[in-house]
């Protein structure tokens, strides 16, 4: 036995090399029934977004049992946090989930601000809301294209990226990068939006609304897509509660829960927008909720751009790179594109934070895939996987 005996308490791990396949497929096949096929979906598989591997036990085309295998993209952001300064960990936040970088920026920066009691100036709050909502729209667009690509339509992802290019150009003007944005600072934001930034946004909103009509005509009302999504992959409210699934999955199960309204942070309470909720509990419900959210985010950005005051974009004596988080503990939740992003910072007042726990919504959302995909067809299991809007770097951290 390897000398790390305490790592193998129940003797679950057999000696490597005494079985076919690798450790996880062997561990998974122990409970396999007769006449079933163990299939590896991924990690190199066109429809797992990034490097997700799902072990699937097939009986013919029906998925009897499945188990996602994670860790192929584990970079250990939480361990890096214990070796970097609080300020130095901010760029990591853009890399944890590159589709919704601003959401993660907000969660970490606000968690440290909440602990240190730093107030953010008005203009910065508006810039935060604008960039977060634009980032949410771009994340939903990538999900929308990739999800319909999973179902076999090759063109819509190009139209979605067509719009997302405009969003990346807009966000690049303030954050400097298009994907892994490092925009937030403790006490405000990194750069102020200039006249061209706001003009581009004002031009983008009506154009996007026109495009949403086109998306509805091309995909949402398409009968093949409706048949592929309606009534498949049912996840009701109780299942979401048992697994801790949040975001569009929870809202598609009929629970009106959005962190922006449940735990009001920033200045979200100044804008009027609804939370799209559908109690369909199936793939189409999740699809509909996300497409509606794009519309609601457009409304928020519209109002924010109209009401933004003049002023500083960062507080005067903003913390410098060598800033230390005061001792204490803080949990802060943000409504990311995929669900509730929470950052739990424990600090001993030293140069680096003592422990940073990143709660990724995808991690809990993926956990309920095994139960939702039981007994469905392989094609439906792939559709359910796509409807969870998974971003693997966020799950593996």
């Amino acid at each position, binding site marked *: 036995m390897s000398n790390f005996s305490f790592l193998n308490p129940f003797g679950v791990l057999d000696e490597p090399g005494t079985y076919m396949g690798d*450790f996880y497929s062997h*561990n998974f096949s122990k409970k396999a029934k007769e006449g079933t096929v163990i299939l590896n979906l991924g990690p190199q598989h066109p429809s797992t977004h990034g490097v997700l591997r799902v072990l699937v036990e097939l009986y013919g085309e029906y998925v009897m049992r499945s188990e996602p295998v994670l860790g192929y993209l584990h970079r250990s952001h*939480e361990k890096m946090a214990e*070796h970097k300064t609080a300020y130095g960990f901010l760029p990591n936040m853009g890399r944890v989930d590159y589709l919704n970088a601003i959401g993660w920026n907000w969660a970490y920066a606000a968690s440290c601000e909440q602990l240190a009691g730093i107030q953010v100036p008005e203009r910065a709050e508006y810039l935060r809301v604008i960039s977060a909502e634009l980032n949410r729209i771009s994340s939903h667009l990538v999900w929308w294209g990739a999800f319909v690509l999973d179902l076999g339509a090759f063109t819509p992802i190009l139209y979605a990226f067509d719009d997302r290019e405009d969003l990346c150009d807009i966000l690049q003007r303030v954050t400097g990068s298009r994907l892994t944005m490092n925009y937030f600072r403790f006490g405000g934001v990194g750069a102020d939006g200039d006249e061209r930034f706001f003009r581009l946004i004002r031009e983008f909103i009506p154009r996007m609304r026109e495009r949403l009509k086109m998306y509805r005509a091309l995909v949402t009302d398409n009968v093949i897509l409706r048949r592929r999504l309606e009534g498949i992959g049912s996840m009701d409210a109780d299942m979401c509660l*048992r697994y801790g699934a949040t975001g569009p999955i929870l809202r598609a199960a009929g629970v009106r829960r959005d962190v922006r309204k449940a735990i009001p942070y920033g200045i979200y309470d100044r804008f009027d927008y609804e939370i799209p909720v559908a109690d369909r509990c199936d793939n189409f419900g999740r699809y509909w909720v996300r497409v509606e959210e794009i519309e609601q985010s457009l409304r928020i950005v519209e109002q924010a751009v109209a009401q933004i005051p003049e002023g500083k974009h960062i507080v005067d004596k903003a913390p410098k790179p060598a800033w230390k988080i005061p001792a204490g503990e803080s949990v802060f939740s943000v409504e990311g594109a995929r669900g509730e992003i929470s950052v739990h910072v424990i600090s001993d007042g030293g140069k680096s934070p*003592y*422990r940073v726990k990143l709660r990724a919504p995808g991690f809990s959302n993926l956990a309920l895939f095994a139960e939702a995909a039981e007994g469905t067809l392989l094609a439906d299991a792939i559709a359910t996987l796509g409807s969870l809007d998974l971003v693997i770097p966020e799950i593996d951290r």
Partner: protein
Amino acid sequence: MSTPEAWRDAFKEAGALAVTRPDPAKSGLALSAHMPAGSLVAAAEKLKAGGFSLLFITTADFTEGFLVTYVFDSFTEHLRMALRVLVKDKSCPEVPSLAHVYQGAEWHERESYDFYGVIFTGNPNLVPILLPGDDPIPPPHRKGPDVIASIRKLGFLGEAEWASDGWELAPAPPETKPAAGAKPAAEKPAAGAKPEAKPETEKPAAGAKPEAKPEAEKTAAGAKPAEAGKEEGK
């Protein structure tokens, strides 16, 4: 059942060691209850009945032991609460698993098992989730002997509303800690001494980690392998 006071009494019945009220403005937690390992599952079932969902499990390494924090929140109205379990015995840390109450807990527990080696008895599939399963490495997130902090010194748990005698995480006596939030003076010399001390202990431990068996045995508890943590300090 949705006010912190109601939940405080509920946890008291479930056999809590202590119930502390961290300052919500700074910590975002309305209530945190310290449970002995035995009564954790009972409290979780009570929370599930009250419509709470388990958001995540944070495990942190302190001198007193592993502090496993379960953070709950209700989906209907917001009340974020934490259940904390202190695991003192670091050689074989045992905590009962919540996988049968909240299926979502299974993955969070496997992650803590990966990073800290905390064994969750009753978890249906306790194999590494984020780290490679076939060549297990000693838990990477455990703190080295010189950087580890003490919960009682940090005092981030907030003042205890109600504490039974069995609870030993009460904040340390004030004279070694001038103010609750301020960084205790005792910490400074340790931090000052840290840069020089660590490189020597770091290098041999990291270098010898995989091959030498006895070496790994000795530092298994506190080893901080190099590959996970980047060489720190200028």
